[in-house]
């Protein structure tokens, strides 16, 4: 079910402001692709343009192509809501729905779309998703308690369970570990490794070691200069990026000699 993503000549605008310019890349199916780069260089914008979530911000638009499995995401006939059902997303800050229990949070993708589920099917989905998200053992006895009562790391894994419960083709993760402690981070990284066998995963991270640990390919984004749009400096297999990158600026950023 996993799909690859081809991005060609992508420009992303907020109103008249060009945020990201001229991105070309291929995200391979059933692999983990990491985006790294300094703050404000357009990694998150790029990630959000992959499931049209950036359109939530008024005035946001793109030029260029994003093709998932032969289907262009930005064709006039494409419904952004349908895109987001296929390409799920996990955000930087955990955002479980405060009105729902843990159980209902996992099923939110089905429940909010008013899909009728048999009780057995619902139980199966909840158990499978929570197990995949490494949360089942911690919450199996309190599924009807509110999701907000969990710790930050558990909430984030709950959000991941919620995202994979609808079985998307692609999972986008926007700095999923930046608000978490090392133990929760490690749990989520293990999870990413496991999910790789079923999903195509794109992750934005500020943590270079994390990119090196979890990803197969890495894209390095940077600003050409202050006030200039962000662009993709280099896109290569992670092993190559972290040993012999093509660009000097990539090596400078990765080794900490940035500037």
């Amino acid at each position: 079910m996993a799909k690859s993503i081809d991005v060609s000549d992508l420009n992303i605008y907020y109103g008249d402001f060009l945020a990201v310019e001229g991105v070309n890349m291929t995200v391979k199916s059933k692999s983990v692709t990491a985006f790294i780069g300094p703050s404000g260089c357009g990694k998150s914008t790029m990630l959000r343009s992959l499931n049209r979530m950036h359109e939530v911000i008024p005035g946001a638009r793109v030029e260029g192509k994003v093709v998932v499995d032969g289907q262009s995401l930005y064709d006039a006939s494409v419904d952004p809501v349908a895109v987001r059902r296929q390409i799920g997303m996990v955000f930087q800050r955990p955002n479980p729905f405060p009105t729902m229990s843990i159980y209902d949070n996992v099923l939110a993708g089905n429940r909010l779309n008013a899909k009728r589920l048999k009780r057995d099917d619902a139980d199966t989905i909840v158990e499978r998703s929570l197990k995949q998200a490494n949360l089942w053992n911690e919450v199996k006895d309190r599924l009807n308690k509110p999701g907000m009562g969990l710790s930050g790391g558990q909430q984030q894994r709950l959000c991941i369970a919620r995202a994979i419960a609808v079985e998307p083709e692609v999972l986008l993760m926007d700095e999923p570990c930046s608000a978490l402690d090392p133990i929760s981070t490690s749990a989520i990284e293990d999870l990413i490794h496991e999910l790789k066998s079923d999903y195509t995963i794109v992750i934005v991270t500020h943590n270079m070691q994390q990119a090196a640990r979890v990803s197969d390919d890495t894209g390095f984004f940077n600003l050409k200069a202050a006030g200039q749009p962000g662009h993709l400096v280099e896109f290569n297999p992670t092993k190559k990026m972290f040993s012999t990158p093509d660009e000097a600026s990539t090596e400078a950023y990765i080794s900490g000699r940035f500037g």
Partner: protein
Amino acid sequence: MTSAALHISQARLPRWAPILVGVMALAVAGLPALLSGWGAVTWLVAAIAVFLVAMPLWSRLVEGRRAATDRFVTALIWTAFGVAVSPLVWLLWVVISNGLPAINADFLTQSMLNVIGDEQGGIYHALIGTLLITLAAAVISVPIGILTAVYLVEYGARSRVARVITFLVDVMTGIPSIVAGLFALALLVLLFGPAFRAGIGGSIALSLLMIPTVVRSSEEMMRLVPDDLREASFALGVPKWRTVTRVVLPTALSGIVTGVVLAISRVIGETAPLLVVAGSTDGVNTNLFDGRMTTLPVFIFSQYSSSTPVGYERAWGGALVLIALVMVLNLVARIIGRIFSPAKGH
């Protein structure tokens, strides 16, 4: 090597110091009060003034400047609190002491139909009228108000239409209630002829007064719903209208309910528009769409206008019931708010 001692302890007044100063201030102010025959209120004001001078002075001598300022401002804030609360307590006291003698089972279950002179009358018809008219007003204004707020927050953000609506809602807030009543009357007269009076006219007038309050409070509550939740919903492929109805509204529900109940308690005591359009009657009328209907405020007004001792008593009794009604509504709002508020904790 000796280091300078850490200066973190200092002299403190005993815990009972404010009580002592308070008693002494009452005594000091009591002397001139006795000699020149001041009333209780003047005595209290003088005592507060003495306290405001004496307490900081003592504190300044023992504790230092910062503590003295603290004690002065603390005393000032308690005084302000007392000034703010005393009218409320006073009002409750007056209404309860005057209204309680009028309240009995007959008063709550009888109407004023065929009641002459000092006979036992009742407010049953007014109670029914108030409940029906206010309920109908809520039925009209809550959907309009909440849907307007949904448009303003979720769909029309920063558009010209939204700005115009916000402006008009603000203007509506300032409509005098009598004007709302005359508007409703004009509407009914245009539609049904000059002699037409019905409770629904009162509901229309009250809904004109309720809508802006409901819009404003619902709007505030929906703006408090974090964008994170909307994004989480969108990212699951949930369409916008479902996001609004299944995520935003439930999350904001407790605040919206509180706002609605506050709007109801605001209009439940309206007199003028109801006097104009719903009129006044002595009997029970349960049909909102035909005939005059009395509400509690109108009942109080007409009994008070009769200028008889029993009329005054009935008016006070009606006032007590009205206040109790508003109080119950507020309690219900709090309970509903607690039930629906997003659950936290384990």
